[in-house]
């Protein structure tokens, strides 16, 4: 099992005719993702030929959702159009047959007020979940292949019992590699993104992993800026019963400087790695202060919980 997606999830690609869209669609299909259509305004009726499959293109998300019965959509459109694409996807799912859908936005560099508007639009749609933006996407490895919606390298993952949540892209891959190095695979890995205003947060993911019977433990990767990690820690303390491992990137970051991600900034002395590690510790979360020891911390957590032999 997994959270939010599985091997049969039907996926649309917004921006499929662009170079990014086509490149990643090919890799998603190769991994086993069930891509049922693409959307590019003005290119409806065309077909995108991927090496292993031909994908129909629609003009609008509304047509695409009603023709294909898609349950998820991934957005590879440029930043200036991305918030509109999110809203279009949300409307199409919300107005669709079951009123539900998952919108995954990979795009980096969306204006913050655009995201504020997109979020406040989606808030009124209980069946619609946004992941991202500025994220690697979401992946659930299967027995063979699996469902990969995003840009992560599929082959580094393997089906297992660990959930992974992260604000970062390549650092998520690092966490995946380290769980693999201690002999553990993943149920689902969710990249929530490094923007200051985003969709799904740590708590949404923790809550879903808590409900998922196949997830035995979770690794949570935060970074400096904001207080999402602190809020997640305080929620987890009362509501999360599985072993939880946490790391926060940016202990060496200077204050007032944006570290690559729009949201990764210590402002007014707030949002430091130290505050976040302390919050984790206070909530009984296993912490890895050293990012090269995330795997070791996971192993320790599993052993303590009686889920692995010492």
């Amino acid at each position, binding site marked *: 099992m997994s959270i939010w997606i599985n091997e049969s999830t039907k996926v649309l690609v917004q921006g499929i005719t662009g170079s990014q869209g086509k490149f990643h669609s090919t890799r998603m299909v190769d991994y086993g993702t069930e891509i049922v259509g693409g959307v590019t305004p003005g290119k409806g009726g065309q077909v995108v030929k991927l090496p292993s499959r031909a994908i129909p293109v629609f003009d609008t998300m509304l047509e695409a959702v009603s023709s294909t019965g898609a349950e998820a959509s991934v957005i590879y459109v440029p930043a200036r159009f991305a918030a509109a694409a999110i809203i279009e996807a949300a409307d199409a799912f919300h107005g669709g047959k079951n009123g539900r859908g998952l919108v995954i936005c990979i795009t980096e560099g969306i204006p913050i007020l655009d995201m504020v508007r997109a979020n406040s639009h989606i808030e009124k749609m209980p069946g619609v979940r946004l992941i991202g933006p500025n994220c690697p996407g979401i992946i659930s490895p299967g027995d063979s292949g699996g469902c990969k919606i995003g840009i992560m390298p599929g082959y580094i993952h393997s089906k297992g019992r660990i959930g992974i949540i992260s604000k970062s*892209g390549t650092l998520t891959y*690092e966490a995946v590699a380290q769980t693999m190095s201690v002999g553990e695979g993943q149920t689902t890995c969710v990249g929530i993104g490094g923007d200051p205003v985003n969709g799904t947060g740590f708590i949404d993911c923790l809550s879903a992993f808590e409900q998922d019977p196949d997830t035995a433990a979770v690794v949570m990767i935060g970074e400096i800026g904001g207080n999402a990690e602190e809020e997640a820690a305080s929620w987890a303390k009362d509501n999360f019963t599985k072993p939880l491992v946490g790391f926060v990137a940016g202990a060496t970051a200077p204050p007032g400087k944006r*570290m690559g991600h729009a949201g990764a900034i210590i402002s007014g002395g707030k949002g430091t790695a130290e505050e976040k590690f302390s919050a984790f510790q206070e909530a009984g979360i296993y912490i890895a202060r050293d990012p090269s020891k995330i795997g070791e911390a996971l192993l320790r957590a599993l052993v303590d919980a009686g889920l692995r032999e010492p």
Partner: protein
Amino acid sequence: MNIHEFQAKGMFRDSGIRVQDGVHCTSVDQALSAYDLLGSEIVAVKSQIHAGGRGKGKLYSLDSGNLVMEGGVKIAFSRGEVESYASSILGHRLVTKQTGPSGKIVKNLYVESGCEIEHEYYLALLVDREKGTLLIMASTEGGVDIEEVAESNPESIHKIWTDPIGDLNASDASNLGKALGLDGQTLSGFCDMISNLVSLFVEKDCSMIEVNPLVRTSDGEMLALDAKLSFDENASFRHPWRADLRDLSEESEVEVRANEHGLSYVDLDGNIGCLVNGAGLAMATMDVIKLYGGEPANFLDIGGGADSDSITAAFGIILEDQRLEGILVNIFGGIIRCDMVARSIIAASEETELHVPLVVRFSGTNHQEGREILESSDLNVETVSTLAEAGEAIVGVIGRSNK
């Protein structure tokens, strides 16, 4: 992107937000003409740099390094004082709490009419990350560092939130003003001001507006005595006019140059250069260096679209650092292939002299090919496969070269 106070006040004026009359100057002569033009006996002579704490800052001579004057914002009571303050400010190095010890050279000055201040407040607009909406924050304690107020007197800080799509709720605005103890004409002046500030924030895609202090004058007017404004750079595509407001001399030259190559770079104080793909992994790499006993010289994310040219540029930028003693490359290949990075490293070493030891960690896509390419090259390079090995190797190699 930050702009100067005089530019922010120009935008305030255009948006109907009350500010005093003032003139932007770049010479002492201009400052004197500004004084004559303003016709106000008392004026403020204000250093214009992109950093706070100007009032308590110190000005130093560029040549001798000697202290020239204390305070980067001065109240002048005569033409003579304007001349003296302007000459002590312009062309000198202003060091404040926010500039760091190297300070900023002051090239711009703002001469502004004085006013009778009854009380100083604090006002700021920013995006509340957790609530995902616009936050308006005000305090009865103005003219001081808001972080200190948050520590010493948090109950003096009042907040309201507003949706940037709709209009500001009039009763929220009025309640905020009442919380500051305002009433009558002063209260309605305050409400107009924040309503105009919200419009300005949304229309111009700001990321922060800070008015510290916001003042109540003796005749009951609310006036923005200072103005600090930053733009959300992600929205620059729809505001081409911003280019005219940008003062590149206020930005780190090397960070601007890195940006032009699609690199995200932040200069740090250590001696180990880093070149990493991904912001989170780049921060984690710095953390690992520190935990293994080293000091990172920089943060550098080459981004998902890196190619041979941008990697060569990245090496060039890292190698400019005089303190550099080693470089750690940490690549977790996804879209970026490790073999491409390996070839780019070799190409970069041919263009720029690689005078320090290099440790390369490859993982993910084509890591094996990447390692083989480097190992069969003439480069002084150690290749490793995990983050822990990378930390050990780079700190070890520097330790050895120092012995």
